[in-house]
């Protein structure tokens, strides 16, 4: 259905070649799904507006090359550039009837719409599934809600961090027998984005079977609770509330994170069997401990875990974390140095796997960003296009895809329905 003659990139042969996606996603979860589909060869059109650009373009404390916002800072924000590759970028003032009319025209020629607004927004715009399916009965609307479209808390706003708390991860994360902490890695967003992508692909299959589009009502909170199935069942089985146990493990011992030489340098290791324990004892030159009653058996190692920790720390504390990781792995022991971003970028394994992908944003310059968890043998996925600048592909989308005339297009620009710059008000947020 897509006119390829002037399409900015070539997706032929890729799995999703020919699928068009309208990506209204903001922040992370929504755009993450859009990126997945774009990687897969879909034509993903990221839709923002001057008044409401993706917030990651205008964060209060954004990340810019060499820390300099520079001109057009909204195109230089690392957070936006890291997660919108392979997309086309356009702007539409969705707040206006005219803007939404244009959007409807795009819906008519698209397969998928992704949004992660709070559940009020699309209704307010009369762009919820009922309305969209009237425009295009085969449309698939993927709503990446924080808590789903229904229920008393469905309107509540959230971020990855708050979802971790609401879904129970934060409560079970922390130092044993101490107060909890507000600890986050924002895992819910990539998890929700990936789940949404899989569901969109499943929905495409359902559409192939039924000829009908559908609405995906995804709750990120539920998606995260789903990562804790065993803990949920444990509550029902044993009326037990999972508590914080630091870096310990219910089954493996020793199992922990040990200080190495250097600033804030650490290595983790996990022992799952008597044989691995023997291997560790050999490695740290303490063969005598192998049959020591305190450590010889599984139960004993759990009971005397504190003693073990100090013995292991004594060994690790004067060693480099990376060398230690290699030594442990060479001995057949599961171990991992606590990597910083710098360590990740320097890691030879990821290098050998060509995990990092080069992009060259018009306003931010060449950089390397992470690839993806899955690689396909016959249709390798990669970075074809850098993250678009705000409204970068307005012309292609409105002229080529919607077939607007020069006058119509000029009218759009002058009316301010489309733009390549955030409004003053929008930029104020960054101050």
């Amino acid at each position, binding site marked *: 259905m897509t006119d390829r003659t002037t399409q900015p990139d070539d997706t032929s042969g890729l799995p999703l070649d020919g699928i068009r996606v309208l990506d209204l996603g903001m922040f992370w979860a929504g755009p993450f799904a859009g990126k997945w589909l774009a990687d897969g060869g879909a034509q993903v059109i990221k839709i923002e507006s001057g008044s409401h650009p993706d917030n990651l373009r205008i964060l*209060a404390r954004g990340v810019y090359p060499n820390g300099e916002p520079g001109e057009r800072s909204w195109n230089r924000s690392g957070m936006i550039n*890291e997660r919108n590759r392979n997309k086309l970028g356009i702007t539409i003032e969705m707040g206006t009837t005219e803007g939404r009319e244009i959007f409807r025209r795009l819906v008519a020629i698209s397969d998928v719409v992704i949004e992660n607004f709070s559940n009020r927004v699309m209704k307010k715009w009369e762009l919820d599934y009922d309305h969209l399916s009237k425009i295009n009965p085969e449309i698939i609307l993927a709503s990446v809600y924080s*808590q789903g479209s229904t*229920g008393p808390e469905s309107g509540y706003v959230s971020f990855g*961090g*708050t979802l971790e708390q*609401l*879904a129970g991860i934060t409560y079970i*994360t922390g130092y044993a027998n101490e107060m*909890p*902490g*507000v*600890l*986050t890695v924002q895992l819910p967003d*990539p998890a929700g984005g*990936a*789940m949404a992508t899989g569901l969109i*692909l*499943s929905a495409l*299959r*359902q559409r192939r079977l*039924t000829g*009908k589009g*559908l609405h*995906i009502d*995804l709750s990120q*909170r*539920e998606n995260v*609770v789903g990562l804790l*199935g065993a*803990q*949920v*069942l*444990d509550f029902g089985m*044993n009326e037990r509330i999972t508590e914080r*146990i630091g870096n310990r493990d*219910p089954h493996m011992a020793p*199992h922990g994170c040990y200080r190495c030489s250097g600033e804030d340098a*650490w290595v*983790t290791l996990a022992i799952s069997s008597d044989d691995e324990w023997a291997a560790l004892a050999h490695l740290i030159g303490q063969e005598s401990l192998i049959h020591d009653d305190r450590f010889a058996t599984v139960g004993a190692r759990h009971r005397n875990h504190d003693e073990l920790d100090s013995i292991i720390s004594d060994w690790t504390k004067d060693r480099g974390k990376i060398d230690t990781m290699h030594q442990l*792995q060479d001995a057949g022991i*599961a171990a*991992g140095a*606590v*990597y*910083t*971003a710098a360590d990740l970028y320097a890691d*030879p*394994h*990821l290098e*050998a796997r060509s995990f990092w992908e080069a992009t060259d944003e018009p306003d931010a310059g060449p950089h*390397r960003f*992470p690839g993806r*968890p*899955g*690689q396909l*043998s*016959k*249709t390798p996925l990669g970075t074809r296009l850098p993250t678009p600048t705000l409204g970068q592909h307005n012309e292609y989308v409105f002229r080529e895809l919607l077939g607007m005339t020069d006058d119509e297009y000029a009218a759009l620009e002058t009316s301010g329905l489309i733009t390549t710059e955030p409004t003053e008000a929008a930029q104020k947020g960054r*101050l």
Partner: protein
Amino acid sequence: MSGPLDGLTIVEGGHGIPAAYCTQIMGVLGANVIKIEPPEGDETRRLGPFPNDAPDRESSALFLYLNRNKRSVTLDLDTPSGQDLFRSIVKRADAVVENFAPGYCDERNISYAALSDEHDSLVMSSITPFGQNGPYRDWHATEMTLFAIGGLMNIVGDINREPLKFGGSPALHVAGINSFTATMLAMHLAETAGIGQHVDVSVLEGLGASHFQDLVDYEYHRTVIRRGDMRTPIPTSDGFISFQVQAHVYNDFRRLILGPDAADDDRDAASAIQAQQSGEMDLEILTWSLEKTKLEAYRLGQEAHVPAAYLADMSDIMASPQLQAREFFVEIEHPKAGTLTYPGFPAKLTGSDCRFEPAPLLGQHTHEVISEFTDLSAAEIGELQAAGVL
């Protein structure tokens, strides 16, 4: 139709969480999942918790959750007889999802190359900690070590103490979601163009692609982000809450705590928030929070459009009005473990329903599946059982 993946037959192999969670999702969505277990069973059958803490290979909470909706076939893949049966089953399946160690399948002549030989549109997803190649290919890994190498552990915990893993095994579960997505991507091409392929999923790379900010900080201006001083949440009468205050809601937040007639803060949002986070309003916040339950405080915050959250433990999760209103939890009856409450599915798709059948007993469907997928007679199946292959 019951689910979007109706009619898909998925063969699952290997041990542990990622592959099992991936196919668990597919099973809920309607796929016919055949779990190939070694005669001694999937390792997760050994992992607690168990009902009444009584270890039993049929009632591991982790196993019950990861493997619902599946059929279990026991097969000794170390024998040519077992490998031959595996190939016959795959011949009639659409996809294989496995997390055997790298090289395992090649040694047994059930690699993608071997399997796709007679099956062009076969999709095979291989999930491993570090991927199918590269120097760490054969390294051992656990949730914690991957969380560490993945660069996430570095930002969890207190800067003056050891970094922390997340509780439970979320990273390995997310790897399962990533595998689901990658597999579906390949399935799309297989079903529309008849082209199958091998999908190489790396748990580590999934984590590497899941950083919010610190990678960019390093790439853009070589700043290494570490965990800071651990912020403790705000205590309430019965637990903890926290606010994630941003510029555009900062004054709403002031009014929430200080009262409706509190004046706007005239500082710029950024520095105001910084001040607040470094404890400027702590006393006022405590006075406000301590006389509320965590749920009340959470609601009041949200109604004031301030992103608020409470630290939910498992009892809070099960009692959550929101999750209950969504009918998120489902009850499943299992012959050995009894009727238990499980997480349902995080999404509702119009026009299809989710499926929730109990996890299989070890080898429960060996006879059924072997007769369905091969031409073996009952006597031949009996011989294979006696020989320990099935």
